[in-house]
């Protein structure tokens, strides 16, 4: 049992959980969160792939990729949340 194995499976599990949430969640906010979980899962996979048995240093390229992925995801999340807020405003106006 090495960390890459443990966290690799963890990452895949998190991705799967996110997938279930993305398809089944009912609230808009929760679906966004589920997608974020998927992205964390993908991040796990890349970080695990980069891991090397110490004392070897890990492969830096996947690390850079994950950092990029995180920034991309926060951008996408921000847009999705802005959509949700705007929609809620419009819907609330209609109700009022």
């Amino acid at each position, binding site marked *: 049992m090495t960390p890459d194995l443990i966290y690799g499976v963890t990452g895949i599990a998190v*991705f799967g959980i*996110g997938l279930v949430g*993305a398809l089944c969640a009912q609230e*808009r906010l929760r*679906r966004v969160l589920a*997608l974020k979980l*998927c*992205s964390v*899962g*993908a991040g796990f*996979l*890349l970080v*695990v*792939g980069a891991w090397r048995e110490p004392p070897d240093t890990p492969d830096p*390229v*996947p690390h850079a*990729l994950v950092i*990029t*992925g995180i920034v*991309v*995801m926060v*951008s*996408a999340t921000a*847009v*999705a949340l802005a*959509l*949700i807020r*705007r*929609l809620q405003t*419009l*819907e609330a106006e*209609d109700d009022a």
Partner: protein
Amino acid sequence: MTPDLDPMILAIFLPLFGAIAAFMLPRAAALIGLVTLAMTTGAVFWLAQRVLASGAVIVPLGGWGAPLGIDLRADGLSVAMLLLTSAVGFLVSVAALDSLKGADQARQRQYFWPLWLLLLTGMNGVYLSTDIFNLYVMIEVIALAAVGLTVLSGTKAALRAGLEYMYASILGALLFLMGVGFVYMQAGRLDFAGLIAAEPSAAMSAALALMIVGLLLKTALFPLHFWLPAAHANATAPASALLSGLVVKAALYIFLRLTTYMPLPDEILITLIGALGAGAVLWGGLQALRAERLKLLVAWSTVVQIGLIFIAFARAGQVGLAESWKAAALLILAHGVAKAAMFLAAGRIKDEIGHDRIRDLDRAPVRPTLAQFTFALAAISLIGLPPSLGFIGKWSLMEGAMAAGYWHWVAITMIGTFMSVAYFSRVLSAFLRFDRVRAPVGEHQGWALADAAPLTLALTAIGLGLMAAPILRFIEIGYPFGAAL
């Protein structure tokens, strides 16, 4: 220091700088947008000339070279897609000038241009990329800009559709990213050459499956099309034209590339993809027959056409895979041009008549004849009537399927064609007929300069059919990938 300019770099950086400029100077955004589009188109033509002269060309960004760095590569297919994007994009931009001129559209005007130019950056980036992680970033650029364009009108329907689109887009991209992770684990590199070199294994299969599902979600193949009709139908006309004509093609293009480098391992899988395409053709056709609004009908026809492209891909099974992408590419090009024309024309009709309810089209006191004519021309290409490029695409599809004895694909295509005749003639006969009792008919009302761009597009869609042979020769330049390395 005078920098060396490369047309590939320009094709990506010009729209990027254009987007920055358009965002910084909202008042001049339209002018900046048009100039950028014109210059980008010029750069792409320059690139086309270079590719025509010397075959596929590569720029190793940063001088590192793949796999450490990222290479940009242009071959026939990518240049064809670039040409489609920038040329159609230019004409849609011209149409957008008119379509967004309303006094109440100041905000739309202000944001249309930076978003569209960012979108163009992303699409051009996709067509030149040779690195799958880079492709992931590019499709995210496309996704964010495209969602922004979808909700440009700010109506509730558009926002709802935009949110669904956003969810689908992010999920598709994340599936793709997960696939990238598996490729890295197995192959240790992310460039296309690495994909070709990779040994088949469980990880590679998982990667291929994840990436393909992600792409199918982004390109809206049945049954993953659920987000498309509402998103494309509720956007403003130029945005719809861009989304339907161009944006879904980016994911399709990546799909074609990936399946070239990582061939689908199994005949059953190919048939499955074709079957999904058949589902799209039938279901999309039925929905188009039932659609009550013009733009919704056009959006469903996009679902049908995407299905058709996948049938073209699967038309001859494993044996024909090396040839099938050409038929698919022809259909992609044909649909890009014709659908952009059709959405713009539908937008014009809606602007002139004031609504787009199909059943009331013949009661309109105004007849935007030129827009209707444009719509009809685009329909000819989408139905696949000669001599349009759509016809040539369908011809290649059925020819390959027949030669391989895959009669079911021929049958589906025929049924699809027949259905498309049926749903388009719902609209076309409404154009032709007139209710003499209720409405005075002014035949030549509603001509406007704004019709010039969609009409040009529609005529191009028809005329390109005459150039099919040179187009086919062109897209074969640099194929297959390995030969050019």
